[in-house]
């Protein structure tokens, strides 16, 4: 099997497995899509079609839900997801300078992924840890009280 | 803990939980420290400790914490007992056998009179 076909097969199996664990009803849709996003970094067309088939819903319903929520993605994401809090409390304590530094070092605008597929940078709304702003979330690691000159060393921790 | 089947059972669990919470706080209580190092034990500290425990039990004393410690460095004065009433300075007693222990409990802990005869300075 080619690499593409392998990936497809892996996706299909994972989707079926996930649905058998979570459930088949409409109310289970978002948890299913979240699980798929966590595993592959995004929800591919293959996955969307399979979910639609198993839940007996039109594919456009699946797509419309998948594109609505920020934590679900239908576009491939880089290996590491950087979420930068762009909300007011982080903004007023120097968030702007940190974001500027991030954009500069990564050479990315929010919403973009790096050419080598290592990083995806997105801005997120308040993560609720405003006491230690500015805040960066990389995958599941939360960094608080971030200064612009710390950005480089934080990023260098990731392969 | 098993399933709580009634309000009464809940109340009992609350009592027990409160007791455990109590353990964690030492403020406002009288502390009695008994030296239980090798020298202390050789000098009879275990009997001293027992006497203190019996006294507390018999007289239903409340808010007492009894701790033990190792050698505090005044071997010739063992068994050593220290009494710290809430908000006061520590008082160290030496050569405290079971009888003396009872007296210290009665005089110092209950009546708040330091027993100078057995008090060790410094």
């Amino acid at each position, binding site marked *: 099997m080619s690499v593409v076909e392998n990936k497809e097969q892996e996706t299909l199996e994972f989707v079926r497995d996930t649905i058998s664990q979570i459930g088949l*009803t*409409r*109310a*289970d849709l*978002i*948890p299913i*899509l*979240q699980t798929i996003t966590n595993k592959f970094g995004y929800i591919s067309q293959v996955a969307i079609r399979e979910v639609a088939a198993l839940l007996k819903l039109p594919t456009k319903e699946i797509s419309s839900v998948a594109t*609505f*929520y*920020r*934590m679900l993605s239908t576009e491939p994401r880089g290996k590491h997801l950087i979420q930068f809090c*762009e*909300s*007011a*409390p982080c903004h*007023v*304590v120097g968030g702007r*300078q940190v974001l*500027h530094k991030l954009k500069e070092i990564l050479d990315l605008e929010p919403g973009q992924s790096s050419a080598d597929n290592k990083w995806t940078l997105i801005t*997120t*709304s*308040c*993560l*609720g*840890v*405003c*006491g*230690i702003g500015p805040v960066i979330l990389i995958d599941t690691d939360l960094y608080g009280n971030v200064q612009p000159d710390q950005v480089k060393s934080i990023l260098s921790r990731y392969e | *803990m*098993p*399933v*709580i*089947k*009634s*309000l009464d059972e*809940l*109340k009992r*669990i*609350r009592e027990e*939980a409160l007791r*455990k*919470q109590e*353990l*964690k706080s*030492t403020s406002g209580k009288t502390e009695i420290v008994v*030296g*239980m*190092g*090798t020298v202390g*034990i050789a000098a009879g500290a275990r009997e001293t400790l027992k006497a203190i*425990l019996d006294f507390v*039990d018999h007289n239903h*004393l409340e808010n*007492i914490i*009894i*701790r*033990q*410690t*190792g050698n505090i460095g005044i071997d010739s004065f063992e068994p050593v007992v220290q009494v710290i009433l809430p908000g006061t300075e520590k008082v160290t007693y030496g050569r405290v056998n079971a009888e003396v222990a009872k007296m210290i409990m009665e005089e110092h802990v209950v009546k708040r009179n330091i027993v100078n005869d057995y008090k060790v300075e410094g």
Partner: protein
Amino acid sequence: MTFYRSTVLVSVDPICVEKGAYELIDTLNDELIKQGLIDEVQVLETTRLGDPTKFGPDLTVYPEGTHYTNLTYYDIPRLVEEHFIKGRVLKQYAAKMMDNIDEELRAPRSKEIRVVLRNIGVIDPRNIEDYFAYDGYMALGKALTEMTPEEVIQEILDAKLRGRGGAGFPTGLKWRFARQAQGDIKYLICNADEGDPGAFMNRRVLEGDPHSVIEGMIIAAYAIGARQGYIYCRAEYPIAVSTMTLAIKQARALGLLGKNILGTNFSFDLEIRMGAGAFVCGEETALMASIEGSRGEPRARPPFPANKGLWGKPTNINNVETYANVPQIILKGAEWFSSMGTEKSKGTKTFALAGDVKNTGLIEVPFGITLQEIIYDVGGGIKGDKKFKAVQTGGPMGGCIPEKLLNLPVDYETLGQAGSIMGSGGMIVMDEDTCMVDIARFFMEFTQDESCGKCVPCRVGTHRLLEILEAICNGEGKQEDIAELRELSDQIKKNSLCGLGQGAPNPVVSTLEHFLDEYEAHIYEKRCPAKVCRSLIKFEILDGPCTGCTVCARNCPVNAISGERKATHVINQDICIKCGICHQVCQFDAIKIS
């Protein structure tokens, strides 16, 4: 009663049991009997001690408070000999009990009254026993065995509890509607989708006192007649989700959730549903759509959730903080609760102080306290003792309140009159170095991004508002802009379906009202008074203070600064991107912003 000189608490949480906690307890008791210590040392089981250990089990000896971990049953004889007979700590197994300094929740300051926050930092949220020690589930016991559902509703009505999610609707009334609605199947929902930037009160309650919310929900379910409940928690709060999951498990294991609670014929169970990163899902109808598996788009009300909610059934939905107040009201009574606060707003409210204030973090104060007291007495005043400029309340749909209104006693009505909202309780304090136009633009960026897109006035209107504000901040503001901002804001407010659209223009409207001079300076003078808007400021190096140390030049990300060592440096205005880094690193105050 035997007086014990020592008590040993052994953790019997599932991890420790797996590692042999019960064998340990048996061996400990045997050894204590053997050494004649059984009357002096008491051994008790507890659900949890400190953080779960990788190896276990763990135990703590009181009154010393010595904590041991990684013990096995064959270590016991030595432990007994060393610790209980010789009075020495067995060092190789002694562990430190972590003392965490809480930066978000300090000790209560004067003027604070902690009701909702009372247990946070005091109890271990992963140990249900701690909750029991602080009257946990006693309110539930009282409600289920001594009160009828109608009496519970009446108590909440008498207390005049208002929804803490922002709208402030009387909770008792909401419950009554749900109770009176037709139908056998009813649902209860807790809105834990706290998305307001700057608000993290709900998060702390979910993480620090989860059972207070669970207990409040069970009481509410009893009152309205629901058998199934959901806690909708945003995905950005993973610790809250895991703590709540554990708390639900523990409550279920003890029969406080499930069938026949406390031996009555009332049954109720709870499930957690997670959000997926959409701010609008904090709106109740959008939230229900999300649980149902659809796009989180709000719908028109009526019908209200109390009549037609989740899957078309009567549903009561309340905020985390609202539920957290319920057990205390049932235990202490409506009169106690309504003795705090103002005429129309009873009880206390948590606020999250953020921004340029000295003591940031969570506070809880009775309604009626003034903004002045909150910012200066509880908050400690402005950071760096700078001048106060404005305080923004209620989240991104709230307005900015200027200095002249600081003596406002805080309650739902007064904040509304001042052009703002209570919202969930976020309070962002801004000092003199804040540009109010930039702030309005900033909040509009947020609401524009989070608009679900359903209503044209909101979707297109907020986009247009943002465009105009961005132009003004870039020095391209036009004379007509102020009038257009006002007109648009009015349209959006009047024609949007949900609270997001209706509130989105508030920051714009309130800053236009109180800080018109700043808008005018931006538009007519192309000047930003607070020296924030990049296009309108210039960074210059002053000849006098500059020592030519080259620090600024070396840190400039675009190499816009040139100069010889020991000679005054110069910034090339064509290249300068106004990031402000030179200003930050200069030790001699030689960089002027104009």
